[in-house]
Every structure is written in C-alpha cells, then in structure tokens.
C-alpha cells in the first residue's frame, strides 16, 4: 500500500476507535477540525494535504487535548498493524 494510503487507513482506524471511546459525534467533529485532513461523514479519511506524519500527529493531539494521555494509550494496537508509519505514540 502506498504510504499516503497507509496514513489514511491509520487515521481512519484512529477515528473509528475514538468513535467507540468518545462516541462518533465527538470523534468525528474533533477530527474534522484538524487541518490538512479531509474526512467523510462516516469518519473515513478521504484525503491528506501536506505532510502525512504531521497530520497524524495533529489528529492524535486533538484527542489527547480533549481527554488526556489515556486515549493515546488505546492507539497502540493500531500502530502495531502499520509498522512503517512514523508516530510518537
């Protein structure tokens, strides 16, 4: 899979997981506010503008800002599925 596509898949999974944790309304609303990411109404990432790693960081930070480090911890299993993705989790 192309790297941008991998980033899109990772970010989509993160939003899906946060939808379970925070509820879909909140998870998608927060994600839509992150600059450089295009998000569909179902929470799927449809496009990334600019640096993908930066966009991923901004997405994670927006959830951490809302409910703390505990949500970051829940993302571990997603990153193990994508070993090529750079992240600071």
């Amino acid at each position, binding site marked *: 899979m192309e790297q941008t596509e991998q980033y899109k898949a990772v970010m989509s999974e993160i939003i899906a997981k946060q939808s*379970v*944790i*925070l*509820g879909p*309304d909140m998870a998608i609303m927060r994600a839509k506010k992150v600059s450089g990411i295009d998000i569909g109404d179902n929470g799927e990432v449809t496009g990334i503008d600019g640096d993908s790693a930066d966009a991923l960081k901004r997405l994670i930070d927006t959830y951490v800002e809302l409910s703390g480090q505990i949500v970051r*911890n*829940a993302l*571990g299993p997603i990153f193990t599925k994508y070993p090529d993705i750079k992240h600071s989790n």
Partner: protein
Amino acid sequence: MFQSGLLPVIAVLLTLYFAVVVFSYLGVRRIRRGALEKDREAKRRLYELAILKEVADRTGYSLNIQKVLDVIVGSLNQFLEYSAVSYMLLSPSKIVFKADLERSVSSQFIKDIRTRMLSALSALLGRDLAGIEVEETITGAITLEDIDEPVRSYFNIPLVIGAELVGVLTVSHTKEGLYKESEMEILYKVVNQASQAVTKLEEVVKTEQGKVAAMVESMIEGVVMTDIDYRIIATNPAAKEIIGKKEGAPTIFDFIDAFKGALDIRGKLEEAIKLDKVLTIDEIFFNNKYYKIVVSPVRSSVGLTRGQILGGVVIFHDITHEKEAEKMRSDFTSMMVHELRSPLGNIKKIGEMMRSSKILEDKQASSEYVSMLYESSSSMLNLVNDLLDVARLEAGKFDIDKQSMDIRTLLAEQVKFFEATAQGAGINLKLLVGEKMPNYVMADAKRITQVAGNLLSNALNYTPKGGAVTALCFVHKKGMILGDEAAAIGAPWVRDNMPSTAEIPDSIVVAVTDTGEGLAKEQIDKLFNKFTQFASSVRQSDHKGTGLGLVIVKGIVESHGGTVGVGSKAGTGSTFYFTLPL
C-alpha cells in the same frame, strides 16, 4: 411625470436605499447572533463555574469519584438536554453502572448505552470486559417498553484519576445530532477539572500515607493495622518477622494462625473495636520470645468521618530483654542474700558453740573458732563492701581522690604483696615496666591499688600450678596497638577477642597477663555485668570472691577517664588491661 433624465438617478438612489436596508438588516442580525452566542458562552461559563463550585461544596472534592459524579449528574439537566446520563466505574471485581433517566426510555435503550460504555472501557483498557459482573442502578424516570426510540446521540467522557482509567461518563438522547461540540467540550472540561482535583487530593493523601508508612516501617515494634472488617491494611517488617512471613503481604489469618493457642488476635480486635477501648496484654510467650501486646481501635480525626472507628491496630512490643533483665535482677538478689546468709550462719553456729564453757577452756579449739569467725565476718564484709562500691558507682557517687602518684612503685608493691600467694600456688609472678615511663601520674592511689590487686588476684586464682602471671606497665601512644607496644618490652599479651586499641588516647597502660584457663567470647561479654558476673562467681564455688571485682574495676578506671579491656583465649590465657590517660 418625471423627466427621462431623472430615472437613472432615482434607480441609483433606490438601489442605494435597498443596499443600505439589506446591509443594516444583515448587520443587526450578525450583531444579534453574536450577542446570542456571547450569551450562550456566558451561560456555559456560568454552568462550568457553578457545577465545579457545587462539586467542591458538596464533596469537598472527596476521594470518592462516585460522589463527585453524582453531583455532576444531578445538576447536568440545567445545562444539557438528555434522555439519560450514566456512568460506569471500574473496581477489581465488578463494574458499577448507574444511569439517571431524565425521561422515560425503553430497557433496550439502557442496554444499548450499557453496551456502548463497556465497548469504550474495553477499547481504553485494551481487554475484553464481557465476563465481568456489572452492578446496575437505574434512577429517575421509569422505563417504558412501548417507547421504541433507540440511542441516536451520545458522547462518552473517559474518567481518569492519577493517569489511571477509573470509568466512563455517558450522555445520551433519542434525538439525532443533538450535541454541539461546544456543549460536549464544556462537560469534558468540568469532568477533567473535577478529576484533576481528585487526583491532586489523592497525591496529597498518598504523600501523607507515605510518611506514616515510613514511620511505621521503621518502628522496632511490630505494627498491624486493620480496617473495620479486620482486613489488614498495613503491616511493618517487624510484624512480619514476628510471624515469620518473609515474602508477600500477610493476611489477618497469618496472624491468627501464628498466635493460635497463645492469643486470639481477631477476638481482641473485635473486643477493642466494639468496646472502643485500648486493651493491653501484659505478657505472652511466643516463638521463644516474650511480647507485650496492645490492641486499640483507630478513630478518624479529620473530615466527614471524624470520630468514626476506622479499624484497629495491634502493636507487638518485644519484652524478652526486659524479662531477662528482670530475671537477672531477681536471681542476683536471691544469690546475694544466700551469700550473706552462709557466713552469717557460720558465725551464729560458732557463737552457739563458744557459749559452751568446755570450748572456752580448750585454748586451741577456741583459737580455731576465732579464726573461723574472722574469716566468715571478713567474707561478709568483702561482699558488703563490694556491693556498696557497685551501688556508689551506679548512683554516680563514687568519689576518687586524684593525687600525684608513682605507678611503678604502686605496682611493685602489689607484686610483692602477691608473691607469697604465687609461690604457694607454684606460679611464676613478675613485673615488666616499659621505657620512658613518667615519674608521676594523677590518680587515686588507694583505688588504683584496689584495681591492680583485683587483676593480680584474679590472674593467680585462675592460673594453674606451673603457669605464669606477668604484670606490665608502659606508655601508649594513640594509633599504636597495645599488643605491639607490649611486645616491644618483651611482655606477653593475649590479643584474641580484644577489640582494636589504636583509638585509645595517649595513656599509661597497666596490664596483667596470665597463662590460665582463658575465656570464651561469650564469657568476655558478660565480664563487666554485675548480674551475670555475680551469678557465675557463685556457680564457680572453687574460686573465691564475689565476682563483682571486675565491675568495680571498670567503675574505678572509668572514673579516672580510662578504659578497661580484655583479650583472652580459652585454654591459653588472658590479658586484662586498664589505662590512665596522660
């Protein structure tokens, strides 16, 4: 009719007029919208402040997160519209689920919320919670099965205390797309601030608990603290050692089993807590040790629980040494009385016999009886003098009269005094004096004579025929080893079991080395204890004396600022020394 040239002007003016009207309308609308938004924001801020104040007032930011959540849940309807607000709290054995219904919903709605909350917790913890018991409480409106309205809007707020997930709070509604981000965020903010306050409070409590724990840990006494249900909440290493629990946290059953037959710990705790009374068990014998045990209820002295009994504490005080000392004192007294009684009995018997005129007429028999009287009364007097000296030393009333004296002459006289005894016992007695001895030292000549005489007498008593006793005297320099300094003047010195002597300040050293029985290490340790010395002296009836001599020697030397020491090896001999500081 208007002139045709005026029409464009009128059209422009009308356009301008309409433009002004439209812009004014839009401007007013924008201003009104802004004012409304400001009003909403002010209301949100007000809610945030009000709810945080309420949490603080009603719980004092209790450590109990459930109480804090109940306050938030109870006042949420002032700010948000919802069908149900619910929370789940994690505990080791179960999950507490509480839902407060603002309006009636179906049981399926509640089941749905419960499933979503469990999924959120499961995602955060990274483990499946399907098998865990959920304790459910529903409050507020009743559930109605004919309401077929599913969950259409909801949001969860993870509850975190001190970086640990403790639960989740969920707001839900049957209407779709109900919650605005700003509203959700304000509740996040409120919950997070309350959680942070609880976290800070927990940290303070933990720090304080840490201080108490450190104090309890360092106590020599064994300490066991229990809650009201007799579950152990703290034990220190001393308590674990008492019951021989080397690893892991002990339970109350470990203590009950360990003290089985000796003490009913659980029963005593129950009694202390029920009667609200401190119980003292003066003495129990357990694992070859004596303990005094105090069992006390523990009362809260702060906060809402002030005055309430929180549990109990058991303190184990090891009194084995006190018991041993008590026994030694008691043995000492009875032995001393016995030792005084024997010569007194002899004196009485001799007195009775001498009342007979036949004995008085027999001059030889009379003379023998008078000698026996003298010996018995001397023995008693020696014992009484020794006891008086020890009593004076212990009371700090042992006066010494320091005068300028020649130690060499004093020692020579003492050796001469014991020469006859040594010859009679077939023991070689000699005196060795080191070089550069000062002509005079400041000391109480009478008392130093007593000390030297005691050491020589002991050495002769314990040295067999054919052995040797050497009195020696030399100048010691700090940093030097006494044994080396003695060797320099060719004097014998027993170094075995003798602690380091290098730290002794510049002094005159007087010592007596013998080739007698010698002493084992454990005997040396007891030499200067009046109780043990007297007892061993009484047991060794073949050696004369009260056994208190060395106790007195130590007292006299220390009164001069000097030290007393021993080096000895069983079967080889001993060196007893004392120092007089220069």
